[in-house]
């Protein structure tokens, strides 16, 4: 026991912390670290939309290895919380689960999200739309291009107002779309790089989904293989949420087949074709999402921490979550995954996603189900992050 030693040791902490403390000015917001992040991305976004120049690196500050420091993660999840209600924790089907003792690489790639806080690039969106349309044999038609982002001057005023209030600037302010409607097939390209295709149910062969998801996945793969735009697709069935009618719902995702957990994280998060809804009536339409996010601007290969280290951070509260209530303990964690979060982030970086058994505050639970809540911990070593996320009990 020695408070003296501690008082003396505090005298040797990093200069950077001391400088930050001296100049720190509190922003008027319920989530100060979010505001700080927003402030940073605002500058970046402003540079991109105004000048139309090639985008600057994600951060002006660099870490010891010369890798740009990664900006704080921004949660842009809207209302509600990310969780599933399953009959038992074992019933949850993860996107990319890690097994005990699974080998992981020392580093993983991180990419800048070029569309973040910038005007929609309608040309790039249209090009992507035609790529997907070609998979369905559609090569001509009249596209409708819409930029819903306010004019520059107005936008500047709006952002200034948001900044003054200390709130984060949302990427959703910079929206736009490119649409193409043909007989029986509709295409919609979003700013993020995703393209949605809506079609009549008869176009696809799907089995008795959602009750037989694996069979459905295989029949979809057979009927869709040449329309996925993937070299060697594999089907992944994820989810297992029990709805209020007692049905179990899954999402079927196709991604490039990958041999390692790290490669799977990337392919299953950043380049997928997804089916999320299976119509019961012939009159209803089927929606397929082509989510190929732009990975052309790689920031570098970043050293990553182990799942155990990530778990310690989770227990310390260094996580991103939308689950209300107190943080779970390690004993509550049922599944660990390695994923990227796209497109609602300034950079595409890997995360450990922990699914923990929770009892969310203020939310009535169904009989006979358990709730799993999602908690994200950055996989990149904290020295390469501008800030570690800090859970503060905030709920949307």
């Amino acid at each position, binding site marked *: *026991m*020695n*408070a*003296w*030693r*501690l*008082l*003396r*040791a*505090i*005298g*040797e*902490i*990093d*200069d950077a*912390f*001391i*400088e*930050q*403390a001296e100049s*720190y*000015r*509190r922003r008027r917001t319920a989530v*100060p*670290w979010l505001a*700080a992040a927003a402030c940073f991305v605002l500058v970046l976004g402003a540079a991109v939309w105004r000048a139309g120049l090639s985008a600057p690196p994600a951060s002006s500050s660099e870490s010891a290895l010369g890798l740009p420091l990664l900006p704080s993660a921004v949660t842009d999840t809207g209302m509600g919380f990310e969780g599933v209600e399953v009959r038992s924790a074992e019933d949850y089907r993860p996107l990319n689960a890690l097994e005990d003792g699974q080998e992981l690489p020392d580093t993983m790639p991180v990419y800048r999200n070029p569309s973040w806080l910038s005007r929609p690039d309608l040309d790039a969106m249209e090009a992507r739309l035609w790529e997907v349309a070609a998979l369905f044999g559609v090569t001509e038609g009249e596209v409708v291009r819409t930029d819903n982002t306010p004019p520059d001057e107005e936008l500047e005023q709006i952002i200034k107002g948001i900044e003054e209030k200390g709130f984060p600037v949302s990427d959703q302010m910079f929206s736009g779309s490119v649409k193409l409607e043909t007989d029986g097939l509709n295409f919609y390209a979003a700013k993020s790089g995703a393209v949605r295709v809506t079609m009549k149910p008869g176009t696809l062969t799907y089995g008795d989904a959602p009750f037989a998801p694996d069979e459905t996945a295989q029949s979809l793969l057979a009927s869709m293989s040449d329309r996925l735009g993937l070299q060697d697709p594999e089907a992944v069935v994820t989810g297992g949420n029990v709805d209020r009618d007692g049905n179990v719902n899954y999402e079927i995702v196709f991604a490039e087949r990958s041999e390692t957990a790290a490669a799977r994280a990337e392919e299953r998060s950043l380049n997928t074709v997804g089916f999320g809804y299976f119509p019961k009536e012939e009159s209803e339409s089927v929606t397929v999402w082509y989510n190929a996010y732009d990975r052309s601007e790689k920031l570098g290969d970043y050293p990553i921490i182990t799942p155990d280290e990530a778990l*310690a*951070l989770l227990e*310390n509260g*260094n996580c991103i979550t939308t689950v209300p209530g107190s943080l779970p303990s390690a004993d509550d964690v049922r599944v660990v995954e390695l994923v990227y979060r796209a497109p609602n982030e300034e950079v595409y970086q890997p995360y450990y996603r922990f699914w923990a058994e929770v009892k969310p505050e203020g939310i009535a639970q169904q009989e006979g189900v358990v709730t799993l809540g999602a908690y994200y911990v950055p996989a990149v070593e*904290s*020295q390469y992050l501008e*800030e*570690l996320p*800090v859970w*503060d009990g905030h709920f949307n």
Partner: protein
Amino acid sequence: MSSGQVKGGITVEDEEIIRLYWNRSEDAVTATSEKYGAYCTAIALRIVGLLQDAEECVSDTWMRAWNAIPPERPSRLRLWLGRITRNLSVDRLKGLRAQKRGGGQGELLLSELEQCIPAASHVESEADDAELTRLLNDFLRAQRPEHRAAFILRYYYAEPVAAVAKKLSMNENTTATVLFRMRKALRSYLEREGVSV
């Protein structure tokens, strides 16, 4: 005296002061004292609580600077000097305490920091100074910037809680609560790391 122009992270004036040290000119000490005397004295006074002792800590700081530059060439002279003053003041507080003198924030800081010391049952090994600093840096890095700033203003700069609250535009009670939680969190962190302080 103006604060000088910023040029590559070092103010022009600081560059000039450092040049004086390198030339072994006694004007270096005068210039340092003019520019940073008030800053360093405030730190020392907060910690030791007695003006005469604080002034001695500051004089010792100038002496340390004279002996260290050259060969050193601090890139942030103000922080570099402040750190010397701060640490000399903590050392002096120890002496004053033995003599039952002093009455600054230092006493309060010590009693508050007692709450961060891990219980003996959690201790596996004694951390050396470098290890302890590394642990503190890791702990601080994981904190919200606002909380980290409060911790540093209080335990590095020995600012009274009311002054910390004012600087961070926070309510005083909230600031006290933040500091209390951080002390608790630091204790848990050190316990988890299994080190003695």
